[in-house]
């Protein structure tokens, strides 16, 4: 593992050295921070707290064209939209959001590899920023096997030491980025790493929220599928879907044909994010709906993240970013729901 020190003032110069890459970094628009393509390296500021959306949207965009089709008389032509991806670097990735990509990797990988996801994933390097302090009052990464300085999924982890960053390169991709600006970096002193470790430990202590004994939840849920618990917990849900739209691990999507012109037929097959909290998500064309009410849909969300995903992939499908808690308009709080599940019936 390569460790380096970068003066804060040198960050724009480093980014300028990465001119062969498309650069993303958090940028403020109105009240919100979000990842944007950066044209001016000097505009990059890493003093944001939490981006509204995770960088998932860069790897798995909210809307993307999969195919184009043309039809004339009895002939049809179909063309896949799978252009080469320019190598990209995302700066300022929070450790929970990088871990989230390691989870969507499992879904989009496997025996049916998703070429759209992977062309971006493979072309993208993730430069993380340790959370010092925790960016949200609803952070609970420690409960789901994460931490404010977790390295999972990152190519480089940066820690803010005040006037400089302590960098750890974790992969070959990370090494390449550092090599591109090698003259800007200094070798760290032993005290630099100690300082970073101290800051990490202090930050972890500042995380306010937690789900105790989360490991008990998957087994507990198994016996609660038919429980009236879900009716009660879901009563206030207005099925806006923001919990899953903002979630860095949620991956559900829809595929639809959009017509550009009807005669001759020309159109696109488009993938968009979809949402298990919407009533028509599972509705058959006959009208039958296996998850017809709020209770069954909240149950699906919790079971997917803390039971089905755990059995399938041995990971919680949650990295504790807290976005769903902070942004739910009716204050459905996944941490409280999980606390209640753990204590249910005891």
């Amino acid at each position, binding site marked *: 593992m390569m460790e380096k020190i970068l003066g804060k003032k040198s960050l724009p110069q480093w980014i300028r050295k990465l001119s062969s890459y498309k650069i993303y970094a958090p940028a403020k628009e109105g009240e919100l921070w979000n990842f944007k393509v950066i044209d001016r390296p000097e505009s990059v500021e890493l003093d944001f707290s939490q981006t509204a959306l995770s960088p998932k949207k860069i790897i798995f965009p909210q809307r993307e064209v999969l195919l184009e089709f043309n039809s004339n008389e009895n002939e049809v032509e179909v063309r896949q939209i799978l252009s080469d991806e320019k190598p990209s670097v995302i700066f300022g990735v929070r450790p929970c959001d990088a871990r989230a990509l390691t989870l969507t990797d499992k879904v989009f990988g496997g025996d049916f*590899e998703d070429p759209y996801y992977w062309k971006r994933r493979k072309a993208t390097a993730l430069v993380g920023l340790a959370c010092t302090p925790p960016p949200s009052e609803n952070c609970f990464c420690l409960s789901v096997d994460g931490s404010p300085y977790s390295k999972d999924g990152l190519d480089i982890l940066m820690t803010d030491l005040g006037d400089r960053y302590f960098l750890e390169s974790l992969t070959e991709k990370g090494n390449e980025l550092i090599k591109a600006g090698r003259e800007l970096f200094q070798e760290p002193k032993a005290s630099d790493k100690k300082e970073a470790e101290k800051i990490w430990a202090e930050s972890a202590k500042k995380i306010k929220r937690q789900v105790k004994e989360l490991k008990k939840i998957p087994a507990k849920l198994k016996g609660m599928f038919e429980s009236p618990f879900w009716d009660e917990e879901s009563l206030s849900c207005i099925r806006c879907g923001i919990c899953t739209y903002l979630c860095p691990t949620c991956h559900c999507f829809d*595929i639809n044909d959009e017509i550009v012109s009807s005669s001759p037929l020309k159109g696109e097959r488009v993938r968009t994010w*979809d949402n298990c909290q919407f009533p028509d998500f*599972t509705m058959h064309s006959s009208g039958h709906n296996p998850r017809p009410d709020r209770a069954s849909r909240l149950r699906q969300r919790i079971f997917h993240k803390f*039971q*089905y995903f755990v059995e399938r992939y041995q990971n919680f499908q949650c990295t504790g970013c807290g976005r769903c808690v902070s942004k739910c308009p009716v204050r459905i709080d996944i941490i409280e729901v999980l606390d209640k599940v753990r204590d249910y019936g005891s």
Partner: protein
Amino acid sequence: MAHNVYLPSLARIIEVKEEVGGARPIKTFRTQFVSQNDFSFRCGQCAMLSVFGKGESMISISSSPLVKDYLQFSILKMGRVTSALHEMQVGDIIGVRGPYGNGFPMEQWKGKNIIFVGGGIGLAPIWSVLNTALARKEEFGDLMLIYGARTSKDLVFKQELEELRQKMAVHLSIDVGEPGWKEFVGFVPQNVTDKKPSPKNAISITCGPPIMIKFVIKALKDLGFEDAQIYTTVENKMKCGIGKCGRCNIGLHYVCKDGPVYSWAELKKLPQEY
């Protein structure tokens, strides 16, 4: 790069047959790939069919894998894509990707009697297995079909069913009596009870509306069938067909990939959410 899992192959409709008319019409389509294709499938697997400009729909393949000249799909007109398919003619092009799903474990059924129990369009997935078993009759025991629909007009594969009587036991039913109907009148599960297929060295496959499946399973259990001897197929709304889009799951199973075929022993362990 490996094949794009979302890219359908083009197939031309070479035959359209109207099976059932009226308010719930069913048509059978035969399709041939436009270019050389290595599509090979197991009985009970499905394919994602495209009507370009309308979208995709997951449909069970009703022809036998032993038939190499075409793929056959029997389709009930229901939503946007199946309605568009019903408008299509011989010569029109659709998209086909797949095959998807697990299929029936027929290799475990060597030497066994097979009782097929279908209702309405549920004969489509059965048809692939039934014709495969018939073509390799020496590998299996006795074959029996118990099939019914609301009215005689709603039965699919009518002509083929008449021909089938020469080769195996066929018991048809309609829900309410009609002039000239000589066979069983009543629901499919009642016909199962009436015909009393023996569970000895047997497998039963049942496909049809969920309510029918529920009572067929009960009827078979009453006749002494074990849970592991009863197979069925499950349907759910699907978009990707490859276990990623997140909507067809029953518990941790994605029906598109881990199903659609389940023994009752397997299915009863899953949450009752389908």
